[in-house]
Structure formats: structure tokens, C-alpha cells
């Protein structure tokens, strides 16, 4: 019984230690972010590997998610003779929820895991220690540009996802199923609000980008410097990001759309 309690205590302490380390790391990175500005080339390199290389998966998923929404939405709405509202259904689902959330999940799988593996391997092969030996701060040289790049890419990727998805819904709804083109756009423009829907969606994607990149960078930096440790850290990045994004999504949705 006592042994069991001690075990519980150890687990709790380890959890809070990790949480504390994660916040300290975040503070150090945020304090060092301004040093990226004069050497923006570093951030551009990372924007390429985090943002540009994620474009294909984001565009393709966005297109198919939009097409599926168009198909499913049409089948439901046509029973009520309301298939003209298809544009509203597709646009609101994408802009409010699916755009930020699915992009964040794909981002964790595509870019977050790569960030963790890269930083973890740098640690395992003692490249980070080598930098410290040369009086180069690895937090500013390695972590800050990656953090900045992830934080900047997420909202852009989410916007691309939503825009492509709306077009996908348009292809299926108007092109295949024969919804009136004018109704698709006019109902959408009538019901989707710039502040309530689009702005709040962008806020969500900014928050998710922050959290996803933070988790990825922390797991990499905190990884046990062995092959197994790096592989575990990569897994943790994807799992924790998915949980954090879905949990935060509920909180944000309740804050944004709950009071109506």
C-alpha cells in the first residue's frame, strides 16, 4: 500500500517536473525569439521544412475533406429541400472546426514529429553540447527559429486547408450534384461572418500552432539521448499534440461560440 502511494507520488512528481521544464523552456525560447530577427535566414530554412513541405498533405487533405463534406451535407440537406445551404454547411464546418483542428493534427504528424526527431538526434549525437562548448546558445540557434517557423506556418496552413476545402465542396456540390452556383456562394456569404467565424478560426489555428510547436520542440529537447529515447519522444509529440489540440478546441469553442 505504502509502496503504491510512493509510486503514485513519484509519477506525479515526474509529471510536474516535466511540466515545469516545458514552461521554463518556453520562457527561454520566447526570450530568445528576438535574436532570430537579424538572422532571419535560419527561420526561412525552417519555414521551408515545416511549412512548404507540409503544403502537399494539407492541400490534398483539405480538398478531400471539403469534397466529403459536400457529398455528406448534400445527402442530408436534400431531404429538406435545403441543398442550397450546402455552401454554409461546408464553409462553417471548415472555417470554425475542421480547418484548424485537422490542420493541427496533420501538422503534428508531418512537421511536429520531424522537429522532435531532428532536435532529439542533435541531442543524442551531442551536437547541442558541442554548440554550448562554442558558446553558441542552442536555444537561440536551434530551437527559437524552429518554434517561430512552426508558429507562423500553422495559421497559413489552416487558411489554405479551409480555402481548398471550400473549393472541394464547390466541385462536388455544384459540379457533380447540381447545387445552384449562385446559391452556394450567396448563402455562404450571407451566413459566414468575418469576425465570428473566420477571425475565431484564425485565432484557433494560432493557438494550436503555438501549442503543437511547443510540444514538438520540448519533446525533442527533453528526449532521452538514445535511439529509443528519440523514438519515444517522437511518438509522444504526436499523441500529446493530438490530445492537447482536441482538448483546447473544446475550451476555445466554448469560449468563442458558447455564450450565444
Amino acid at each position, binding site marked *: 500500500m505504502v509502496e503504491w502511494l510512493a509510486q503514485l507520488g513519484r509519477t506525479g512528481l515526474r509529471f510536474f517536473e516535466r511540466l515545469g521544464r516545458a514552461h521554463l523552456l518556453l520562457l527561454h525560447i520566447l526570450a530568445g525569439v528576438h535574436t532570430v530577427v537579424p538572422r532571419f535566414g535560419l527561420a*526561412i530554412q525552417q519555414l521551408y521544412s515545416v511549412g512548404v513541405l507540409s503544403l502537399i498533405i494539407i492541400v490534398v487533405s483539405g480538398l478531400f475533406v471539403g469534397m466529403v463534406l459536400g457529398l455528406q451535407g448534400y445527402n442530408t440537406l436534400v431531404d429538406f429541400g435545403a441543398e*442550397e445551404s450546402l455552401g454554409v454547411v461546408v464553409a462553417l464546418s471548415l472555417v470554425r472546426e475542421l480547418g484548424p483542428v485537422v490542420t493541427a493534427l496533420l501538422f503534428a504528424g508531418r512537421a511536429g514529429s520531424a522537429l522532435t526527431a531532428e532536435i532529439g538526434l542533435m541531442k543524442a549525437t551531442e551536437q547541442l553540447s558541442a554548440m554550448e562548448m562554442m558558446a553558441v546558445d542552442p536555444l537561440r540557434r536551434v530551437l527559437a527559429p524552429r518554434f517561430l517557423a512552426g508558429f507562423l506556418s500553422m495559421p497559413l496552413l489552416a487558411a489554405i486547408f479551409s*480555402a481548398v476545402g471550400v473549393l472541394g465542396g464547390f466541385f462536388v456540390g455544384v459540379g457533380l450534384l447540381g447545387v445552384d452556383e449562385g446559391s452556394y456562394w*450567396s448563402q455562404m456569404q450571407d451566413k459566414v461572418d*468575418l469576425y465570428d467565424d*473566420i477571425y475565431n478560426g484564425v485565432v484557433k489555428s494560432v493557438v494550436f500552432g503555438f501549442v503543437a510547436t511547443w510540444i514538438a520542440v520540448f519533446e525533442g529537447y527533453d528526449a532521452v539521448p538514445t535511439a529509443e529515447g528519440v523514438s519515444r519522444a517522437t511518438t509522444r509529440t504526436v499523441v500529446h499534440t493530438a490530445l492537447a489540440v482536441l482538448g483546447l478546441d473544446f475550451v476555445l469553442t466554448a469560449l468563442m461560440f458558447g455564450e450565444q
Partner: protein
Amino acid sequence: MLHTRTVEIWVGVFVAAGLAALFMLAMQVSNLSSLSEDEGYLVTARFENINGLKVRAAVNMAGVRIGRVSAIDFDPETFEAVVNIRIDSRYDKIPVDSIAGVYTAGLLGEKYVGVKPGVEYDNLKNGDRLKGGQSAIVLEDLIGQFLFSKAADGGSQ
């Protein structure tokens, strides 16, 4: 790693695409994106009540779309809704005495303007006025009339 210049170009493309996507999302909300349909001619129609008709709604004749609603105004002197309609230029043989009405597609569907052909030999041209016929049906009014007639029936027996 790729050449720095290539990387920079790709990042530029990425950022531009992201901003363009945001711009497109924003434009969908405001009516600025209305796919310009400049060809065609403008006519107006007046209705007592257009209850829920929207700009860019379809204008149908015999169930075929011949144009779109381009603007909706309110005339403060006659208390009527003034609906501006742009009819595609290929449909230029519509009699001047055709009658327009506001109808609903299905029970809960979108409102549209239906045009019934008249008998005159002259055709509608830019700036003409369609005869406003049937206004939109307001469900509350219908229910009110129904209850009223029911009550009247009950009283006579």
C-alpha cells in the same frame, strides 16, 4: 539542403498562398467576390413583401434560370420592395407584360423570383419594370387567415 535561393522562393510562395487563402476566406464573407455578371440587362420589379429574398437569388422562367437578383431596395413612399433583376442577354424576347412573383423552392428552401410570360409583342429592355405579382407567402399570415376562417366557420354553425 536545397540552394538558399530556391528555399527562399518556396517560402515566399507558401506565405503568399497562405495570405491568398485568408484573403479568399475574407472575401467570401463580404459580397465583394460576387462573380461579376456584367452582361445582360437590368429590369426592376416591385413587391409588397419579399420576405427572405436575397441578392444573387435566382430568377426563373418556366423553372429555368434566366437571371439573378442584383440589388434589393425599399421605396419609402410606396412602402414596397424594389428588386433589381439582371437578366442574361440571350433571353431578350420576354414580353413587357410578364409578371414576376416571389416563390419558395420547396417548403423551407431558398426564395427565388419566378417570371410568368405575358402576351405583348414588345420585349423587355434595359430599365423596364416587370409587373409585380405574387409577393412572398408569409407563413404567419397564412396561419392567421386559416385560424380566422376556421373561427368564422365555427361561428356560422
